[in-house]
């Protein structure tokens, strides 16, 4: 077993356990913290795959900005633990059973139908990691320039939407 494989297996164990911890824990703050750990492990997977820029974006945007926003909202609402209410008693076992079916199907289909020809991943051969950011920038600002600009408009719309949604009540109260 090589070092890469050992690292992969350990990290995938951590990723699955933290995802399950996010799912199981009753307290929403614990869920958010488990999810931060999960995002960080996925960032390490990106590094293993030879994508350092995506790994750093993952940590800054997901583990940083998005999860801090989540924690702010959890603490703002004070809704960290909900009382247990079971409306549909058969829903949980059915959902778990169907989830196993989904996992088996997705794995089978992705492996048999969608697998690219390159079988073994060699991160060093993909791209030299010092050149990753330069190459990414060249492709981003030439081939993918229009999607990039559209993304900026999307972010602007999201910002305006969030401000409008949360600011309406305050304005009504003032007038």
């Amino acid at each position: 077993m090589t070092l890469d494989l050992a690292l992969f297996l350990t990290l995938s164990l951590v990723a699955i356990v933290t995802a399950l911890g996010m799912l199981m824990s009753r307290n929403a703050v614990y869920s958010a913290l488990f999810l931060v750990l999960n995002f960080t492990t996925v960032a390490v997977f990106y590094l293993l795959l030879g994508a350092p820029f995506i790994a750093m974006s993952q940590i800054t945007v997901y583990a940083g900005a998005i999860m801090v926003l989540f924690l702010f909202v959890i603490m703002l609402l004070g809704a960290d633990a909900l009382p247990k209410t079971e409306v549909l008693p058969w829903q949980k076992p059915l959902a778990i059973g169907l989830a196993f079916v989904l996992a088996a199907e997705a794995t089978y289909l992705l492996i048999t139908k969608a697998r690219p020809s390159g079988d073994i991943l060699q991160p060093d051969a993909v791209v030299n990691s010092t050149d990753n950011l330069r190459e990414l920038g060249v492709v981003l600002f030439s081939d993918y320039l229009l999607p990039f600009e559209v993304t900026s408009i999307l972010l602007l719309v999201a910002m305006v939407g969030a401000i409008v949604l949360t600011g309406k009540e305050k304005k009504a109260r003032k007038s």
Partner: protein
Amino acid sequence: MIPINYYIVLSAILFTIGVTGVLIRRNALIIFMSIELMLNASNLAIVAFSSAIKSFSGQIFVFFVIAVAAAEVAVGLALIVEIFKSKRSIDVDQMSSLKG
């Protein structure tokens, strides 16, 4: 030297955990976090495929997905805050105003 199948299986497992979270949890915030987990699992698969075919397009695509996820979180959390203001609860079973 990790076979790409390992990444695919891991990504499928993480995605399924996200789906299960959406199905069995009642807290709107946890459901939202599960959606983030699903986005992350698919990102992992995309990056694995993109390094298997030695191309940059997958990484660019993941970059856009991260940007869209950030926008989605901003709007979604604003909606959850609004729902909490009117219902005093974020239990999705309580959101039944349209029920006949």
